[in-house]
């Protein structure tokens, strides 16, 4: 028994470095933001939050952030579902290659991604020219909201494939066989078995994609050099910008962003629990 106890103490010792790192790089910054968000020129209070919510400018930033994140996550997850399902149905050599490639491209974001899209999709970009000559589009502005949604969707797709690919493990071929033996059509199978089984994975992936998009900064900054009004840009501009420096208001915006994420995460967890209890 004593050796087991000693093992426990040794184990506890192993946790110390992680705990230190967690405090230094996760808790401390978060605490710093939380404390600073409550301080303004007028003293302690929620002035910063009131200011952020009363200003049309910051409300627009929140709205754009949410809109871009939502649409890019939705389009991204739909493409990822189709892609990762098909990925399981192709010969293994192709599957291995494409899934390895998706893994690689899921890290292709930020400045290089923005640069690549500038090459392909700006007014004189190669893809824009091709599409224009084919008569599919008249004009396309990458620096608009639609452009950003396309850009965000690009880095959502590989992440979605990465997360959803294992989730399809949950579906078993014999269920489909049983269902079709009982007369269920393909749609019935998905409606009653496939989608309910996959729901937790889909929800979880969606939340992660949303978080990924909400927090994305480098990509949108590299593309628009801070001219597009989204929350991360506003936060960074007020903390590290050279025109308007207001770290306290930035902290409040950051807390709002954290709050949005927390809300989404809580809803996600709640839905997960609910789906589990229903299944019981």
């Amino acid at each position, binding site marked *: 028994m004593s050796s087991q106890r000693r093992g426990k103490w040794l*184990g506890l010792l*192993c946790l110390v*470095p*992680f705990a230190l*790192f967690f405090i*230094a790089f*996760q808790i*401390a*910054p*978060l605490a710093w933001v939380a404390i600073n968000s409550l301080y303004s020129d007028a003293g302690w209070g929620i002035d910063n939050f009131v200011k952020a919510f009363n200003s049309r400018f910051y409300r627009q930033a929140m709205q754009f952030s949410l809109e871009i994140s939502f649409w890019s996550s939705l389009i991204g997850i739909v493409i990822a579902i189709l892609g990762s399902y*098909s990925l399981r*149905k*192709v*010969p293994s050599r*192709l599957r291995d290659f494409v*899934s*390895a*490639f998706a*893994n*690689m*491209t899921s*890290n292709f*974001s930020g*400045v*290089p991604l923005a*640069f*690549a899209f500038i090459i392909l999709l700006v007014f004189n970009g190669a*893809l824009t020219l*091709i599409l224009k000559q084919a008569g599919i589009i008249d004009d396309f502005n990458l620096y608009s909201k639609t452009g950003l949604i396309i850009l965000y969707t690009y880095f959502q797709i590989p992440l979605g494939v990465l997360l959803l*690919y*294992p*989730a399809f*493990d*949950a579906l*078993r*071929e014999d*269920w489909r066989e049983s*269902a079709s033996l*009982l*007369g*269920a*059509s393909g749609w019935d*199978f998905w409606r*009653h*078995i496939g989608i309910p089984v996959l729901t937790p*994975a889909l929800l979880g992936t969606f939340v*992660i994609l949303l*978080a990924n998009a909400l927090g994305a*900064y*480098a990509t949108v900054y590299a593309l628009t050099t801070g001219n597009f009004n989204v929350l*991360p840009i506003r*936060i960074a501009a007020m*903390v*590290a910008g050279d025109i308007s420096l207001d770290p306290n208001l930035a902290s409040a915006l*950051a807390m709002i962003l954290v709050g949005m*994420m927390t809300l989404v*995460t809580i809803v996600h967890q709640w839905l997960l629990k609910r*789906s*589990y209890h229903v*299944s019981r």
Partner: protein
Amino acid sequence: MSRAERGPVGLYHRTVVYILFLILLAPLLGTFVYSIATSWSASILPSGFTYKWYVALWSDPRFLIAFGQSLLVCVGALILSVVLILPLLFVVHYHFPKLDALMNILILLPFAVPPVVSSVVTIRVFSSGNFLSPAVTKRAMNASNPGVWCGSAFFSAARISTSAVASTSTHTVASGISDRLRLMFAATALRTPRTGVRPEMPSPVRASVPPAAGTACPGVSAGCCTAGCAAGAGLMTASTSRRMISPLAPEPWSSPKSTPWSRAIRRTSGEITAPNFPGTRVRISTRSSAAFSASDSWAEGPPTAAPTEPFRARVRRATPCPPGVP
């Protein structure tokens, strides 16, 4: 569900995969063509090709320094994630199972804080003259110190590893490793395993092992470091995934009385409406892997060594009841 389809359905799936591949390839290809073009503007194809940009890049000392720094941060964060997360996983798993709930919160935390917030604030917290700096040695903790960047990169990696965790991917390499370890512990009777052995061959999931993640975009951007360390941390934390989704997938094999293989027997059931029989709801109930009776106990030794094909087939069916079965 991973059988390759043939015929028109197979053609559809292959087309979808090729389209996916093309979508993902397009920006990379564009960048590459641009990098070997003499000049490319306002035309579909560049006017000529050259490799002089690469020569110029590799003979530029500033680029080489930046490249070295990126690699340093990348490898640093990678090592940190292995050194910090691996012991944590095993210690919590074996000695402090009660910490599971706390671990869930810790795992979710980096995920709730967007990277822009954490990185911007890390600069402010650790730059000299702030409240944390006097407490620690100035030289060790400076916002421009690579150590600090490794630390913050580590947490952006933690965020992505969280993704792997929350993806309900129970079949990860790491969980396979932990299962094997448990098998080892049980077989050598070093200690009683806390939970039963999951009767399932570890199926390596490619998604959790990015083979070339770190090497993909060699250090020109800071994003690279996240890439590399995310690969490592993703792999490491992935094994906590089962804990993460524990509200979904109960661990029926942890009942103390049953033998490991009888624990494999669990019912999967579903209910569908059969259109051929209007008004009836048919309950599908399969007793998967009923072939494992209680006689397959530890006395015969855990069947780890090269299972035969039918055995494997049966074992595969013994995967835990997936979440959300109606």
